[in-house]
């Protein structure tokens, strides 16, 4: 009987067991994060330059900026130097920076530590909200407030951390001057104290991103809720910011991912860095609701 094959098999096994690699090397080198929103009708914007931080960095220290970068913005092929104003904030070195107009083309360049980040875009047409109507519910209604939603058969773990409470749903209709071309819109409802719960969030519509030429009408309807402690609690006095933002399809991707950072990765448009550099048009209205405001406006 020959034992040679057995030795070969055993040797191969030992070799493979030793050599098989199931560890992963993680690249933790920081990366620049560049943000610049070139807003129609506004002076040349400030440009934010930050960087990524390690996972152990406390949240409060993430605002720390990068102040030693060389930042340049080119507006309609005219370069404008930027200088640092601390905390990673760069502003144009001009006494009277020009106001950005619809159709302006721009580029942003950030050089730091031998790395260059670059982004470009076009300023969209001006955006005008024509009307806003809010429809708070007549009464507070019971609602399920779920903090976590984790269901897994493997672990026999129904991670429902459920509580019941009361909320006032508020519907808000926003109308604007609609354009027929291929811009995208981000519609936002931002109440003072944003409310969020895992289940209820699915039935709220505090924001949406959609192509401007898709809706049949020029009215977007959103829904948010205001929590109250009791069923007979009055509709709380609060303010809500109603905003529309117009941008291109890259802005739409960025806005979609920015709204869901827990479930998506931010899809920026800056080469050599994270972040977004693009032109937008913004219009917003701040509503004051509650107390004397119980009926349709």
């Amino acid at each position, binding site marked *: 009987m020959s034992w040679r094959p057995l030795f070969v098999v055993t040797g191969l*096994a030992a070799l493979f067991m030793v050599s098989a690699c199931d*560890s992963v090397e*993680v690249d933790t080198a920081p990366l620049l*994060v560049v943000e610049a929103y070139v807003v129609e009708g506004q002076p040349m914007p400030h440009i934010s330059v930050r960087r990524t931080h*390690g996972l152990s960095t406390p949240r409060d220290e993430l605002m720390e900026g990068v102040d030693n970068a060389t930042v340049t913005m080119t507006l309609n092929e005219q370069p404008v130097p930027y200088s640092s104003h601390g905390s990673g904030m760069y502003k144009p070195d001009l006494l009277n920076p020009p106001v950005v107009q619809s159709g302006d083309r721009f580029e942003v360049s950030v050089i730091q530590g031998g790395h260059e980040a670059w982004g470009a875009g076009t300023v969209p047409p001006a955006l005008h909200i024509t009307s806003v109507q809010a429809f708070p519910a007549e009464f507070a209604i019971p609602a399920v407030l779920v903090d976590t939603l984790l269901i897994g058969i493997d672990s026999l773990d129904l991670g429902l951390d459920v509580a019941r409470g009361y909320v006032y749903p508020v519907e808000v209709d926003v109308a604007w001057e609609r354009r027929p071309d291929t811009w995208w819109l981000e519609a936002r409802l931002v109440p003072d104290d944003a409310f969020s719960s895992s289940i209820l969030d699915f039935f709220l519509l505090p924001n949406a991103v959609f192509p401007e030429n898709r809706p049949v009408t020029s009215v977007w309807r959103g829904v948010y809720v205001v929590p109250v402690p009791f069923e007979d609690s009055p509709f709380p006095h609060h303010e809500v910011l109603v905003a529309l933002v117009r941008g291109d399809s890259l802005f739409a991707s960025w806005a979609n991912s*920015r709204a869901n950072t*827990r479930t998506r990765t931010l899809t920026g448009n800056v080469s050599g860095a*994270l972040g977004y550099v693009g032109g*937008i048009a913004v219009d917003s209205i701040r509503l004051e609701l509650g107390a004397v405001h119980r009926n349709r406006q």
Partner: protein
Amino acid sequence: MSRIPIIFLLCLLGARMGHAQSLRVEVRDLPLTEALSSFTVQSGVDVVFSRTHVQAFRTTCSYEGSSTRDALLCLITGLPFRLQEISSTQFVLIPLQTDPARIRSHILGGFVSDLSSGETLNGAHILVPELGAGSITNEAGYFALPGVPTGRRRIVASFVGYERLDTLIAVDGQTVHLALRPTTLNVNGVVIEAIPSLRADLDSTPGLVALPPNSLRSLPGTLGADDVLETLRWLPGIERAGEATGGLMIRGSGPDQNLYLIDGVPIYHPWHAFSLVSTFQTGTFKDILVYRGAFPAEYGGRLSSVLDAELRDGGRSAPRVVAGINMLHARFLIESPVTTKSSFMLSGRRSYVDKIIGQEHPVRDDAGRRDTLRTGYYFYDWSAKYTYRPDDKSSLSISHYSGRDVLDLRLPFDVSLDFDSFLQPADLFFEIDQDWGNRMTGIRFQRLMSDKWFMTTTLYDSRYRATENAFVRPTRTASVQSRYSVSVADLGAKLDVDWYASITHQLRAGLQLVQRRFTSDIDATIYYSSDFSDPLSESVVSDAGEVTLYVQDLWRPGTRWRILPGLRVGMFGGGRYVRAAPRLNVQFTVVPDRLVIRGGASTQVQYVQRIQDRLAFLYDLVSSRWVPASDDLPPSRSFQVTAGVEHRPFRGLSLTADTYIRASRNVLLPDEQFRTRDGLLGPGIDVSTLLAQYEKGEERSAGLELGLDYHSGRWRVLASYTGSATLNRLLDNPNADWHPARFHTPRNASVVVQTAAGSWTFGASTIWRSGYPITVPVGRFVIEDPVTGTPAYALYQPEFNNGRLPPYFRTDVQVGWQFSAFNADWKAGIDLFNVSMRRNVIGQTFNPDDVVIRARDRRGLPIIPLFDLEVLLR
């Protein structure tokens, strides 16, 4: 002259079983006249024969069963006689008209069956040692060896899980019937299935792993006892995609890359209970064949593997009833001969937890409000087969399988184990109504056209359908209702022809026609308030036909070589795609019965792929949505090369080592790797819409699989180690990085140790594997809202699957006891799942809003005691 008298036993099993006689015949090299006389005297059956013709022959026979006819056939097996039945108690032995002087050689052909049940055996090996020639039985248990010289020849028949049959037969052109005895032990009057080896005969079809159910049944299952797919994980290169749930992954494949066949009919979603247990009950099958990777040309349609299981034909000799119950379900199996030419098998299984906790719960609160909460969940299986054999050369069988899972919930959100707190009328609640399952019916006709030609015709209808309905009401004004269904239906026909061309060539060719219909519907509405809703209503139907031709040749150029080349050509979608898939398997016996080396190379094509809406929370939770190849979705294709060695240094020990390399193209990968479900309804169910959530990708995998199977006396050790790598990348981006596949585990090891002491069996099993890949953020950063200027936190995740969960480790312990009581054989078992109580990490999440980022672990199952009880009535 040594004489071993006929052992003839007769017993009555009681009125319930009828008055079936149990016959046992054991003779070795006894004059046929003497054997027939003894048989006549002891059985009371009259056998008429001519002493002039009979006296020149001797017989060797081993039979156990209830059929006097089969017992007599056993006595004349290989001898130039046929049997004519006059009545149930009178037979005539008629000499065959053969002239040895004129006929120099014959085709040695016949059937191999299980001695105890009469079931034909697929994959059994037949060897004529003096010629060095052999054959393997097909799915009808038939084999043929043309050109065997006339005369008495020594023939060896073997099959894993059965005692080897080494006997002399007369080669005279007559069909022979060989019956193999299952390996059993007899302890204190209780017949106990021995712990059999898993390894097939060394000379089996290259690439094939034959797994007789008896072998699998002795292996521990995790949470699904008597489960084929659950026990396959003890083989190298096979694992589950999860701790206790998830599909089967073979050599790093995706679960949708495996072909599951029941009696040759494809099953699309072979799982119950959220993939906790499979639809393949071990006890209902007579043969289970598994091909990992390089499978022969007769199989196709999937990239990775084939599991081909044959339902039991039903007892041909005696009725048999088996019933069992475990933590999850109760089951039964009945099989019996109907007439001397027909038999049936009927098997059923159903979970019973709903019977314990109830399906509907009428509740009423203090205000008099009434409601009915629902907590229904169950699954069931029906397997049935009727087999009719009009003669020795034909067989007609009708197979049916149907299985469903039904989940019906109506519960308040504050559901908990404190029943009093939530068992009351609910105004805020959720309803989930899910129903999914397979149903297949197949008709198969097998006919031995001549000694050289065997034909198998199969017509089948196989359907998979799932519905997922939901109604969720988290406030009095907001709700969502959704009705979703998805199905795939196959109507197919297959013709397979075996041609035993010569002693060195065994050809098989076939034609397969399948018409598939894919449907899906959704009708859903989200009500943000009573007068503000967002509907989604779509319906999709598509048809696709597939025509496949194949041919393969089992070629034995020498006594040590077995070469299996083949070619499979498929035309899909009315000619939209025509793909050829060549196959080659080679096996060389270095040392007979000790050492073989194997190799193979094959191309596989898969025309249907499974996708799901990755964004919707309300549907595609339990469904398998299959989509056909189209202009947007070309067929996926893989090429695999394998090589292996199997060594048996001494009796009872089998060592295997296999390597493989596989490359696949046009597999579907998620387009945005990090994205998870984040909405109630997705963008729609149109195929092109769903395919927008995927990208075409390529996959590479390689691995080394080591196996050890030691079996000696009361001990058995089964160990495996798999080292592998499976990487994916997007196809249209040449700069894309390769990253680990979703369930890639570089190292995977398992050990099963079993021993028997009297009627007790003890076992322990251990699984150790690398943790699954996960995407670990490497940093965090902040961005600002362009409107409000408020900061938002985001994770920096530059690479997909750049991390890995901690290694998974689990040990289970099993104790079994076999005993006899109430005229029945009983098996009782206790299984302690995760006896080491290690709470394995099976998932991790990261929240960008945490003060400091730390992984949040999701833990696996704790220790769980399980039981199983089975009774066998014969």
